[in-house]
Every structure is written in C-alpha cells, then in structure tokens.
C-alpha cells in the first residue's frame, strides 16, 4: 500500500493493474489492467459469467482478488499483499477503498427495514456523520431527479423493480464517492424518467457505473441530457467540446476477463451502440474546484489508507 498524492487531472482517478482472481481453479480475472481518468465513461462488455461483476466487486473491496493493485481516488490497495496481512489491517484497507467508490448491486440490496429516504441517508448520516437536515435535503433532491419524491417514505417492498433500482442509484450517489459505480443503472421507464435518471447520476456525483442491457446509449444520452447534443459523425467520442462529460475508451484495457470469453474493456462507438455494454464507468471531466478535494467530500475521511479508520485525536 502506497498512499499516492491527491489526484491531479493527469493522474487516473481509478486504476486497476494486473488484477487476477480465481474461484477454485476457475480463473475469472486474468491480469486485468484498466485506467480511468476524470471525465471518462468506460463500458465493460462481456458475456454473462465472464467476470464483470467480479471486477466491479473488487473495486469495492467486496471481492478480494488474488493479486493486483487497485488505486481509487488516491487510495492504493495491493491485493496480493492483502492476503498475507492481518485480518484487521485487510479490513481497514478494504474500507478505505470503499470510501472512494460506491456501487449499485445487480440485485439492489436495499435495506428492507428502512424507508427509501432512510436507505439514502444511512451512509451520509451514520457513516459520514453529516448533519441530518443536510443529508435529507440532498437525498430529497436526488430522489426528485429520478422521479421518486413521492416515494421517500415508502418501504422498498412497496416499490417496483425499476424504482428499487433508482433508489439503489441514489443511495450510491448520496455517498459522494470518487468514482461511483452504478450498475444496471436503468431499466426502461418512460424516456423522460430515464433521461432524468441519467442526469442524476451524471451531475452531482463524481462518476457512475452502469450495468444492464441496452445501455450502450447511456453515455451518449448523458451527453445529450447535459449539453443537448450527441456527438456528430466523425466527432471523436472523447471530444469534450460539447459537454462537461466526456466519453472515451479506457486507455489501457489489457488483460482478459475470463478464459475464452470475448470480454473487452471498450468504448462503444455510436454506430455500434445497439450492442449493450454490461456496465460503464463514468467520471466527470472537471477536476475538483478546490485543491483540497471535492467541496462536499467529508473532510473527516482522510484519503490516506493507513489513517482512514483511526479515531481522531
């Protein structure tokens, strides 16, 4: 673990290097490399069972790869060394990585005993210790963006699948992670809702991941919602001129996800957008306005892994 300096625009916000993971003798991830800079949206495409979820879970410390390093928002965790580390230290490192990301689960996993609002504010209030009014205000704003204001006091079992999914997205966004992982971001509600939904996870957060069929369009829509224009023919996907959010391919997508699968880390060109990426990673293009970090980032959570879970003196 080597705490690297705070992000500079040049440095990738998220980097995965040589991450490998096997379940028994089934090698799922084989030395996967991936770098995502601010402003990039990355789609990872692959057959079912090829390891997309496994890779994502590794970014969140929910899966422990056998080897490789994941660096997110200045926190680097070397999973190869983690296996030998004491359990308490390993937990701390995983927790530090989690502080830098958020995800929406393939099956949402909302807290069934809490209302929609409480689901969203649980992290901000209980973990990040932010004032209740502020957390609730932001939660209401996010819920409004995804068209769920009237469901704030409902319990998850009363929501439709798509509504649960949107709550899952809002819960992840409310944490204000660095690269937010939003998976299976939307089913297909009315198109207006869908656009709002995309806008919601594009604007206030620092990134998002999307999982699901038919979302190759998501990054483009994101641009559309934001800047009112899809990239024209011949315009490079990474062209940022039209929008705050750029879309580009992962710079280095080496390694294979699963033996024999055709999984790629790849930006989907507009022409091929009917092909569905299974998830996409979005990182807003603007570097933080303040040198000290994102203005809303909780200062109590220091980026340095070694100190992040230790009580303040």
């Amino acid at each position, binding site marked *: 673990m080597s705490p690297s300096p705070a992000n500079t625009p040049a440095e990738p916000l998220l980097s995965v290097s040589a991450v490998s993971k096997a379940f028994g003798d089934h090698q799922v991830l084989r030395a996967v490399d991936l770098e995502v800079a601010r402003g990039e949206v990355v789609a990872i495409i692959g057959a079912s069972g090829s390891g997309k979820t496994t890779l994502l879970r590794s970014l969140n410390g929910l899966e422990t790869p056998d080897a490789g390093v994941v660096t997110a928002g200045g926190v680097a965790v070397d999973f190869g060394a983690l296996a030998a580390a004491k359990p308490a230290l390993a937990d701390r490192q995983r927790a530090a990585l989690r502080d830098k990301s*958020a995800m929406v*689960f393939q*099956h949402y996993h909302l807290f069934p*005993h809490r209302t929609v609002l409480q689901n969203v504010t649980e992290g901000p209030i209980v973990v*990040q210790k932010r004032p209740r009014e502020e957390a609730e205000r932001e939660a209401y704003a996010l819920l409004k963006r995804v068209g769920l204001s009237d469901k704030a006091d409902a319990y998850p079992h009363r929501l439709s699948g798509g509504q649960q999914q949107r709550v899952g997205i809002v819960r992840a966004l409310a944490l204000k992670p660095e690269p937010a992982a939003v998976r299976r971001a939307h089913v297909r509600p009315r198109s207006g809702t869908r656009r709002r939904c995309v806008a919601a996870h594009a604007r206030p957060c620092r990134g998002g991941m999307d999982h699901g069929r038919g979302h190759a369009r998501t990054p483009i829509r994101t641009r559309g919602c934001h800047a009112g224009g899809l990239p024209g023919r011949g315009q490079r996907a990474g062209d940022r001129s039209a929008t705050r959010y750029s879309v580009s391919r992962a710079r280095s997508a080496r390694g294979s996800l699963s033996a024999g699968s055709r999984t790629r880390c790849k930006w989907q060109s507009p022409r091929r957008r009917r092909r569905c990426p299974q998830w996409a990673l979005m990182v807003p293009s603007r570097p933080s306005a303040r040198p000290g970090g994102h203005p809303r980032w909780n200062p109590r959570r220091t980026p340095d892994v070694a100190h992040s879970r230790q009580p303040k003196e």
Partner: protein
Amino acid sequence: MTIDWPLFWDSVGPLAAAAIAGTIPLALVSFALGMVLAVAAALARLSRNRLIAGVARLYISVIRGTPLLVHLFVVFYGLPSLGLTIDPWPSAIIALSLNVGGYAAEVVRAAILSVDKGQWEAAYMVGMPRRTALRRVILPQAARVATPPLSNTFISLVKDTSLTSLILVSEMFRKSQEIAAFTQEFMLLYVEAGLLYWVICLALSTGQSAMERRLDRHVAVAR
C-alpha cells in the same frame, strides 16, 4: 371427588400475587440478561477468532447438554461449598439467564446467518464497519427471523421458573405447594397453578403474534 370451590377462589389471589411478584419478574429479568448473553455468544461463535468461537461453542454445548435443575442446584447448593453463598433470587436469575443464553444463542446465530449476504455487502458499500453493519442492518433483520423461536424460549422460561421453587424462590409454584401442604388439597392447587401458567402463556402468545405482525410490516410475507 368434590371440588372445594371456596378454596379455589380464595387461593387465586395469593397465587396471582406470587406470579406478579415472583414468576413474571424472574422470567423477564432472566430473559433480558439471557438475551444479552445469547447475542454475545452468537457473535462470538461467528467470530474469526478461533479461541473466542471455541469458548462460545463450549458454553452452548454445556448449557444445552445439562439439565436446568442441575444448574440451579450447582449455583444454590453447590457454590457455598466453594465459599460462595448466593441468595435464592440471584441464584435463580444466574442459572436461568445462563440457560436462556445457551439456547437462544443458537437461535440468534441462525437468524444472523439467515440475513442475505447482500445486506452485509450493501452495508459495507455505504462505508459501515462490521460492528455498525451488524447493529444497523443485520440485527434488525435477524430480529424478525428470531422472534418466533425466541418467543418459544420465553414461554419455556416462564414455565421453567417453577423449578426455582426447589431453591426456595417464592414464586407461584412454591406458593401453591405451601397452600397445598397446609390444606392437603394437592390436586386442586396444582391444577390451579397449571391453569394460571396457561393463562400467562396465552397472553404471551397473543403478544407474540402482535410483535410478529409489527416486525413483518416492511416485508412482503406470504400469509
């Protein structure tokens, strides 16, 4: 055989008083302490630390493998020979709590294990450490699963308090023994005591249903 109804009605008052002053508080206090022990033992059994898990396993095994009456006698009649003399009430509470703790620990452990793994992951994802995840996410959901079997444990406990009459605790059954010895109406008083236990347990079952409905309110349940 004739039933001595005047004696029946005259003894209801003292027996009910003994239930309210003895049986019910004894059951409540022992259950509360027992649940603390049970949650601690369940978490210990789930701990990554082998030693802690082993101690919890031994505790549960000993409690479940030996009779409650033996525990009561060891604490009340046995410990004085080691120089430790404990009054009837505290002895009863110690033995009953240890007993509840051992039985309920397995219930609590199973309930914790029954909570979907995704709930742990969601809690970790929002940044909770293990302890907070347990307290805010896992235990509230485990409580729902554990309520029916724990109600069972509680009802058994209410009836088991009658054993403490043997270590001189003045609870309801001891009262009925005293009246029976005085009036020589054994059948009447023991049946009457049984009826009163039944009434208490009926009330508890009603309470259990209400609690289950309350805990089920946020989940879609097949009825």
